[in-house]
């Protein structure tokens, strides 16, 4: 158990150093606030750096209007129009700033960033740097944040938000390399911890996408909004689910089934560039009808052969690299086996357009802000448009940074309280009595593997109430076994991987249960959320709010 906390104080604490976190931090630091960014690995290793295809930006006001409409249409009625308008109208400006500070976007013959067609869009407006756009944006964002005077604390794993009265006044966690406990107290806290793709067995996310920020918020008594809306990207590399970017289809690749038929036109007028939910369901239908490939018929093929080898290496080098290292095939000669893969969480911590986190009644939580994939801003509705999330991370990251800097209040969280919270996480709960027979006690990663398996079968791209129920039962059994785990190393050991894995898995279990609760609450299909046992086909035009109080999950609907 930890006996003392190392106190660090600042004006603005940003949790997470992805594109959202860096954008927020740079803004706060430019406003003259002492800003610290805490991340669980080095900022440039954040998941944002894996984003491939590009960032959407309409360069003219007319196109911005169109961008806005198309985003709302793809969102199946669940978007917040005001937020979408802010998003689309800020894009040209944001892109200009990135360009100015050196992001080497691909330019067209007029010297303007070239657009690449992306799903659900009628004009090519996804701006890109090869197919490593995320990495390029992250480099610029990191350089600018450093220049603005942001302090970085990396390899620090934050576990819980700490309050001072009703105000969120900091966060506590463990410095991985030294194994010491840390307390960051801050005048304002910004959550930017990214998504929770690690909940699913087949996912496109990095290993660190464990939704820690969302779990922190739940544990602090705050709700998650539309948490059940998970986007499954149609083209994950078989079998791991690593992403084959939509840029491939944007550049002209087509999906084929066992009969080598390019099947997408049968399902949607936009063909291979239909919105992601449509493509994903089309693939699942093909597989279900026995037109999938492989011994188990569980994948389809992505055909890039129409693209010349030069175009492939110039515009999609990462895809070539990926298929070559993983499967020893080159997309110019071979078809790529793909299957839908868990990709993006549309839901998250609810915020207003300035990044204030909202509680269950809709009031702003003093001292807490959120941005990026961990937040719900209302721009994605029930189905995210590819290329919009990098934009969201920068646009709303900046806004949250600005608002947080303007609203810092000196805070002094109680270190003893923080220490109790931290140690409380590690103590086995009283209910887990030794006598109870619960089967083999899994290691943290074994538990995670089981959890992924449970959620993938019970709460994947296709939902039914029966599966949700089965999932919930299995999950609670798993959780009981998980709680009995005895650490082999004392928690304060340097580089304690066991502890970190355990804490992450703990978060994932919480988020998994929340996911099942929220999914059950949504009784009709909406965008990426598809119910097979849907009773009547009307759009489900409501939001869900999921809360965790006194060990219980509850979900309820909210009107738009």
């Amino acid at each position: 158990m930890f006996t003392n906390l190392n106190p660090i104080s600042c004006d603005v604490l940003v949790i997470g150093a992805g594109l959202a976190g860096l954008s927020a931090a740079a803004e706060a630091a430019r406003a003259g606030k002492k800003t610290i960014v805490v991340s669980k690995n080095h900022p440039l290793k954040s998941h944002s750096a894996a984003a491939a295809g590009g960032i959407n930006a309409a360069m003219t006001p007319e196109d911005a209007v169109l961008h806005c409409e198309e985003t709302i249409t793809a969102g199946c009625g669940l978007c917040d129009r005001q937020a979408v308008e802010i998003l689309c109208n800020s894009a040209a400006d944001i892109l200009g700033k990135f360009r100015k500070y050196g992001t080497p976007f691909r330019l067209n013959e007029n010297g303007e960033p070239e657009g690449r067609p992306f799903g659900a869009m009628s004009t090519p407006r996804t701006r890109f740097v090869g197919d490593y756009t995320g990495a390029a944006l992250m480099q610029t964002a990191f350089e600018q944040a450093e220049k603005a005077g942001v302090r970085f604390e990396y390899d620090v794993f934050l576990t819980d938000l700490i309050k001072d009265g009703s105000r969120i006044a900091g966060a506590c966690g463990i410095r991985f390399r030294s194994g010491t406990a840390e307390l960051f107290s801050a005048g304002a806290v910004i959550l930017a911890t990214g998504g929770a793709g690690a909940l699913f067995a087949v996912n496109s996310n990095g290993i660190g996408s464990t939704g820690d920020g969302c779990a922190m918020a739940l544990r602090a008594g705050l709700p998650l909004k539309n948490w059940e809306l998970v986007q499954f990207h149609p083209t994950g590399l078989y079998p791991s689910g690593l992403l084959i970017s939509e840029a491939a289809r944007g550049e002209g690749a087509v999906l084929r089934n066992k009969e080598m038929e390019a099947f997408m036109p049968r399902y949607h007028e936009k063909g291979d560039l239909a919105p992601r939910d449509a493509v994903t369901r089309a693939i699942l239908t093909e597989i279900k009808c026995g037109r999938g490939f492989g011994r188990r018929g569980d994948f389809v093929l992505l055909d890039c052969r129409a693209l010349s080898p030069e175009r492939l290496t110039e515009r999609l080098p990462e895809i070539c690299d990926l298929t070559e290292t993983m499967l020893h095939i080159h997309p110019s000669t071979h078809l790529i086996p793909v299957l839908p893969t868990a990709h993006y969480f549309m839901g998250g911590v609810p915020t207003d357009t300035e990044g204030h986190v909202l509680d269950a009644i809709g009031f702003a939580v003093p001292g807490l802000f959120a941005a990026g994939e961990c937040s719900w801003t209302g721009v994605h509705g029930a189905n995210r448009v590819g290329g919009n999330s990098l934009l969201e991370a920068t646009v709303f990251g900046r806004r949250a940074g600005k608002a947080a800097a303007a609203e810092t209040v000196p805070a002094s969280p109680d270190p003893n309280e923080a220490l109790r919270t931290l140690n409380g996480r590690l103590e086995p709960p009283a209910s887990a009595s030794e006598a109870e027979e619960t089967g083999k006690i899994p290691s943290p990663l074994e538990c995670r593997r089981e959890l992924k398996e449970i959620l993938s079968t019970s709460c994947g791209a296709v939902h039914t109430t029966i599966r949700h129920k089965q999932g919930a039962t299995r999950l609670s059994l798993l959780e009981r076994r998980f709680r009995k785990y005895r650490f082999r190393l004392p928690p304060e050991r340097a580089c304690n991987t066991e502890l970190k894995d355990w804490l992450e898995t703990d978060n994932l279990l919480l988020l998994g249960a929340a996911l099942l609760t929220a999914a059950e609450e949504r009784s009709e299909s909406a965008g990426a959320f598809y119910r097979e046992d849907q009773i009547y086909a009307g759009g489900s035009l409501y939001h869900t709010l999921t809360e965790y109080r006194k060990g219980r999950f509850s979900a309820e609907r909210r009107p738009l």
Partner: protein
Amino acid sequence: MIILRIYRRDGHYDVHQLDIKPETKLLTLFEQIRTGIDPTFAFSSGCRHGICGSCAVKVNGKPVLACKTEIGSFRSGVLRIEPLNSESPKIDLLSDFDGFYRSFSSFPDFLEPNGRPTKENFLPEATRCIQCGICYYSCPSVSYDKEFSGPAAALKQDRFLSDPADTITESRLEEAVGEVYRCVKCYRCTEYCPRSLDPEKAIENIRTRCLTRKEETIGTFHTKALFDSIYHYGKINETFTARYLFGFWGSLPLILSGLPFLFKRRVRLRPVKAANLKEIRRLLEMEND
């Protein structure tokens, strides 16, 4: 059957004997060990496919990314797996990367733009660098010379220097001239870079730029000495370059130190000139466009 010897925190090696498909990635194997055998086994990873640069380790001395490397890709059936950075305190396969991350702050690590973004396509190699630290921790100059900021930093610096929008070339070069001549041209960085980047070439590019500065340093002077030697003889002539670099008296000790070689009949005193020297001179005189 493959035998793995994996470095663990107190300095011993865990030995695992595994019957496993040769195309299994090292990272998958590490994950299996942490999941099923030892939950305390520490290594780091992120993206799982070679684009985040978290998972570099050394296998039989060779630095690789664990997520991209197949177990069967080594000639030997015994793999000795160690952390990348052998100097810092090591815990299992983790090592301290602070030195590497700090190496980027030895120069202004951002573009100082002139306001007008370029209209030409400019795609610097450095954008594909994933900060894996492989080049830095295999660079012999870095390991003997703590002031050298190393290959990845040079790649980044070259990126700013060649960006048409950057405005602080002079001060960047002033910084760089003290850095780039610390490289001994062993090509390890270029050899091992998992992204097939060429940091050594970046160092050469920066050195070329350094020649445009008015102020001479030993580095720029040395390059010019060799250039002139080739110009005069078509060959490198050691006494010529020594005199060029250190003056007549200054070079004397250096030249005298060569005497034992003379007695061993290794030295030819009369300098040889290449035939058709005129061609060589004209090649070296030519204007570049």
